């Protein structure tokens, strides 16, 4: 049977996220796939990136040979500081987060519920080393929480579910989900399809989603 291309590549999804973040926003990008968003900011838009380890105005990866191990991002990778950047200590950094001063945060997810509950820090396995970092502070304080993720797990299980089975990062915090199949808004504890990726039918999307989808 001929394989038809279904959905977006994750780079395209990152581009979709970048297109939805308004000019002059203060933005925190989670570790991993969310970091790709910075590469797709439309021309003419200026975003200021916050990294919770104490830098506002994070710039791109340094050119080889110019790394400074004391200039890093939350993922502990070397970064640069743009002109106009500022450094601050951890309590001030989380004052920006918890105090509602950051406009957008883009995070990865293990699971998102139809009500916007997010699970992205622990799979609850008994032998795993629990590690939370700043995720719970970000979802508690940032105005808009976007999730960028594959629509299903590697084994094809839905990541968008009625209720999260993994330990929560926060309750009713996610406002929009970007996946390789669709963009979905969460309003009034319900999932609303905002955009379908090429080749994705409504019926198929519902099959791979663990909670009812709605259309405006």
């Amino acid at each position, binding site marked *: 049977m001929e394989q038809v291309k279904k959905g977006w590549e994750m780079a395209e999804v990152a581009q979709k996220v970048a297109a939805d973040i308004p000019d002059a926003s203060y933005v925190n990008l989670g570790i991993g796939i969310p970091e790709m968003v910075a590469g797709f900011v439309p021309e003419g838009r200026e975003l200021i990136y916050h990294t*919770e380890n104490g830098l506002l105005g994070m710039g791109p990866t340094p050119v080889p040979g110019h790394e400074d191990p004391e200039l890093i991002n939350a993922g502990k990778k070397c970064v640069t500081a743009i002109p106009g950047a500022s450094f601050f200590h951890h309590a001030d950094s989380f004052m920006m987060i918890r105090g509602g001063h950051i406009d957008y945060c883009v995070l990865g997810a293990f699971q998102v519920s139809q009500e916007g509950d997010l699970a992205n820090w622990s799979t609850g396995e008994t032998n795993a*080393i629990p590690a939370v970092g700043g995720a719970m502070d970000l979802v508690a304080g940032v105005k808009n929480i976007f999730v960028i993720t594959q629509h299903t797990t590697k084994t094809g299980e839905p990541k968008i579910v009625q209720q999260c089975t993994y330990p929560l990062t926060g309750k009713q915090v996610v406002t929009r989900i970007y996946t390789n199949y669709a963009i979905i808004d969460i309003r009034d504890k319900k999932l609303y399809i905002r955009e379908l990726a090429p080749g994705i039918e409504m019926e198929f999307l519902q099959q791979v989603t663990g909670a009812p989808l709605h259309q405006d």
Partner: protein
Amino acid sequence: MVNKTVASAADAVADIYDGATILIGGFGEAGSPIELIHALIDQGAKDLTVVSNNTGSGQVGLAALIANRQVRKMICSFPKSANSVVFPELYTRGEIELELVPQGTLAERIRCGGAGIPAFYTPTSVNTPLAEGKEIRHFNGNPYVMEYAIRGDFALVKSLKADRYGNLVYHKTARNFNPVMCTAATTTIVQAKHLVEVGSLDPETVITPGIFVQRVLEVTHPMEESVLVAENRRYPWNR
């Protein structure tokens, strides 16, 4: 005369006692006071509670302190990271305690410890396993969890510059937890890359005022943890 400088790393950590709570600055290797930590390994105090964002990497610095079995309990937000082997092994075997704290809550608990505020309410971790067993109180209709302040008996801190009054300036994202930790310990011990003359730091740019600092050690060429890890070095030094 106010002179907080000490002559050696051994002198700086000499009175750290068994069972002490120690705040250790740094986010990964950035801002981690590796020479002071190694001096603490030589000194040998044990049964320590260590408050630090991570648990170190490889077999040097904080990871080496843990490997040397001097740490009873870690209070941190992210105990595993790339090249972090010592803590995960001991934790899996049930041989070290862990208190997992969201990163912003950790910073604020330390800030409050320095500010004379015994506890506070925060929205972070509400409705998650990390709020279980803690007091929840509603303000303006929203739930908040009560968290207690953290204070240390000692703080180990790294700065770029210091003067003999203890005024400090940091380097880029190596600042991280260091300034709040300075405020929250009975005895704050600093390793500074440059010890400078009193009066040479612009008062407008001092980040940690000297009142929060008790001891200053100049370490002109601090080792880089990532380089040591890449070379597979182990403290006490292997060959």
